[in-house]
């Protein structure tokens, strides 16, 4: 029973990282580094809570994805059209999201750091498996969790088996060659960045609506950055990102249970996801291979 609870909790903690990491796979496969995913999650969590507060959870999810898309559009204009430094643009997106959400929260909810309680999607009981041991895993599951798990094979199929995916990858590996073959490099890069924004927005909305039931400032806690690490750990593949996200989710779920024990100061428990991220990157970074033109802006007519 304890183990099933722990696994269920790991899954719940892994989903926001997974959704954002899937987005990160799309944008980095198109050759655009998106460090602004954290900000897009923040925007998603606030707009999700806002939408749900006024028109219900479905509208909240939609609004969150639109907010993520909007932030991603800014990033795409900056990095693909104007070819500015992708890291700088991403950092600016994060600051914009932080300031913008405080600003809007103060203007709309009259509180800078929290929203009122908002409703989430109705929970689902998966039929047929509801027996003893598996009960915590299959009862009262958020539909977004199921959606996120379904998105793993879907993303994998899109990236590795479709024309769109092939073009996306070619743009990230060798944009000049792709351009010579008549692929619209800029359009593909825009597509990659926008998909990542929508998924990060959805992930933020999951945190606000499904996980906490309200928007709280700083609720993303660097999950956008951890998702980037999960993507690197997963070797830029959706399925790899799933396993990496589960690892990070597991570490967080485990840390909650250690807190209850009280043996270790809780500040150290709070560090676990970040230390794990550092450790994972340290151990893995030389073995994994990024897309060849990842982070390099593409400019036509360059000698």
């Amino acid at each position: 029973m304890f183990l099933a609870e722990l696994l269920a909790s790991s899954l719940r903690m892994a989903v926001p990282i997974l959704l954002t990491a899937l987005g990160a796979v799309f944008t980095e496969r198109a050759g655009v580094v998106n460090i602004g995913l954290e900000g897009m999650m923040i925007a998603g969590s606030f707009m999700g809570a806002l939408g749900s507060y006024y028109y219900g959870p479905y509208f909240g999810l939609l609004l969150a994805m639109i907010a993520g898309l909007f932030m991603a559009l800014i990033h795409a204009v900056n990095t693909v059209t104007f070819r500015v430094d992708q890291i700088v643009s991403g950092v600016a997106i994060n600051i914009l999201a932080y300031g913008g959400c405080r600003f809007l929260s103060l203007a709309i909810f009259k509180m800078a750091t929290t929203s009122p309680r908002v409703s989430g999607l109705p929970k689902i009981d998966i039929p047929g498996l509801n027996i003893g041991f598996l009960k915590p895993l299959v009862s009262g599951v958020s539909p977004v969790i199921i959606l996120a798990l379904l998105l793993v094979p879907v993303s994998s199929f899109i990236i590795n088996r479709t024309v769109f995916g092939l073009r996306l990858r070619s743009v990230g590996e060798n944009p000049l060659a792709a351009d010579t073959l008549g692929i619209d490099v800029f359009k593909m890069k825009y597509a990659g960045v926008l998909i990542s924004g929508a998924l990060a927005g959805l992930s933020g909305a999951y945190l606000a609506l499904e996980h906490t039931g309200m928007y709280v400032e700083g609720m993303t806690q660097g999950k956008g950055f951890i998702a980037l690490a999960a993507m690197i750990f997963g070797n830029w593949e959706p399925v790899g990102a799933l396993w990496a996200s589960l690892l990070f989710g597991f570490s967080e779920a485990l840390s909650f249970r250690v807190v209850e024990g009280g043996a270790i100061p809780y500040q150290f428990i709070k560090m676990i996801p970040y230390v794990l991220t550092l450790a994972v990157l340290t151990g893995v970074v030389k073995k994994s291979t990024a897309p060849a033109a990842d982070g390099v802006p593409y400019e036509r007519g360059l000698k």
Partner: protein
Amino acid sequence: MKKRYYIVMLRILAPVLAIVLSALISSAVILAIGKSPLQVFYTIFKFSLSRLDSIAIILYNATPLIFSGLAVSIGFRMGLFNIGVEGQYLIGAFFAALAGFAIKGLPVFVHLPLVILCGALGGMLWSFIPIYLKVKRGVHEVISTIMLNYISYSLIHYLIADVFLDRSQKLVEGLGGILTRTPKLPPSALMPKLHVFLGLFGIQLPRHVYLNWFFPLGLLMAYLIYYLLMHTPFGFEIRSVGQNPEAARTAGIKPERVYMAGFLLSGAVAGLVGLSDLLSYFGYMDLDFPRNYGFDGIAVALIGQNNPLGIVLSAILFGFLKRGAEGIQTQLNVPMDTIVILQAVMIMSIVVITKVMNDYIKRLERKESVICSSQNSSLPA
């Protein structure tokens, strides 16, 4: 020769254009919540510049930003992105506080420099981790410094709340508990204010202004970094690695060594960011110690074009905006986070405008070289 002036003019024009553009975009945000942008900007200017003490507060606000802008810019000059200034200055401030309250009985001219040195040392230690991981293991410094920022928040929380909590405090009236803070620093560790010095020139500042000697120290630091970058062999190495690490390697410079030394220098400067607040305003470190100076430093460095003089000016600009933000929140009820939005938009517009201008300059140069070469080829005929 004429064109060089033209290019310098464009370089100066870029930040000005960025500031105007971001003011326009922020105006749209202010309009969206039904307030008048003109009134907001008028209030910012009036609130910030009408009184002498207000100008001193602006310079006080600018002090930490000078250090953090300089720290970020050293990274940028090498082609590295030090987002970790945030964590480095918290650790630096804690080291300084520790040296302040743990050592007693030293005269001020020994204790104060020691405290400042410990601040630099703390920042340097915290910057060692990401640069070691980068040079030895190839971990990108952006992700590792962000992770270390989060780790430093928790670590500082633990050190203040558990290990070095001041248990000798008197109970706070009505709160029924003690404040979560370190012991107070003795006077020998505190930085004197500028009041006495300015008094010599007939400038009288009220007591609620905390402008202190860290401001002139920041100016000195800016000059030192300018000198280091432009007039020493190490500065040349930093700049050449930033321009093209592989070319630098061919020229016999080891980029890894430059990265290591330069990043540690950046961390040491970052360690001084929080000291103006710690040693003149608070006198102890608590859980409400100011945050976000590290992120502000990124904007300061970019608006200042990574040039030390530019960084001083843009730090004062942000000090001015911060002061004005208090004005618009108290007088007009416009959230002071408007300034954060302004800051983000400023970062984006400065990089976009600089990029467009550089492309334009490149095109100018290319056009000229085409004309030259066509003239050359026509010569023999």
